[in-house]
């Protein structure tokens, strides 16, 4: 682990355009289905990927939705 870089990353969040919470929620279902299908959701929605890495609440909700769809819809 690179200490100062790790700390800077945590404090500043990722660089790049950030979709924000509302826009992210708008497409979160599509993002998650792409992710579960093995497609690069981050390449398709780069500003959403940036937001998910920067916003702890939205990132946690994405993880929860991935888990839910994986378990309930994909067996």
């Amino acid at each position: 682990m690179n200490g100062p870089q790790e700390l800077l990353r945590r404090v500043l969040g990722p660089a790049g355009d950030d979709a924000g919470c509302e826009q992210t929620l708008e497409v979160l279902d599509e993002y998650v289905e792409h992710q579960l299908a093995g497609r690069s959701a981050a390449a398709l929605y780069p500003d959403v990927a940036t937001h998910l890495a920067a916003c702890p609440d939205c990132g946690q909700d994405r993880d929860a939705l991935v888990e839910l769809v994986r378990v309930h819809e994909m067996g």
Partner: protein
Amino acid sequence: MLAVELVRAIEACDAVAVTVDAAVVLDPDSRAWLAALRPDGPGHDQGVADLYALLHRAARHEAQRRRGSLPARVADDLDDIARQAAGDAVIVVLRKLDTYRGASRFTTWAYKFVIFEVSAALRRESWRGRTATMDDAGWERLADYAPSTPEARVEIRELTGAIERSVAADLTPRQREIFVAVVVNNVPIDVLADRLDSTRGAIYKVLHDARRKLRSSLEAQGWAPWADEGEA
């Protein structure tokens, strides 16, 4: 939410005409959900009951998944929280039904609303009675691991000091309050939104602006972050 309250709330929602992008071919399951939930359809009441059952199951699943990280008083209350979140999510889904474009399966689309509701409720309940203010040990905890060498310890201490000074000098009081709560004290944004009578999006925007200011300030002091790696 009691069943009768749920029915009243659903009846209060405007009737919506569901239109899906003509270019999108819906899977049979999503088509069936839309047909069942049509406001004027014969199967509407059953469709709403099925939707509640689906979202209640989802809310319970998520609540149970997080049980281990919740305070005991919240863990004891998961059934009520899941029921309430499912009821709230049904209302949101019905209100937003005309915005469903068929870009994902209907169930995935509906699940995101119940996840939003149950997550926000669990965060609020977990932080009930806890203060979100700064304590003296907060800045020490910012680097939440022990640097392995004396040089790394010095570097981390210098960076932590630079961050603390920039937060004090460059941020507005509102930005400082939200930045310290979220980044230093790990307070969920939903909790701040609830306490400050705001929304997740509005609180996040303040955090985002604060981080941009700090990035400029720290870069000017020679603390340049590397380029971020993309996320899967």
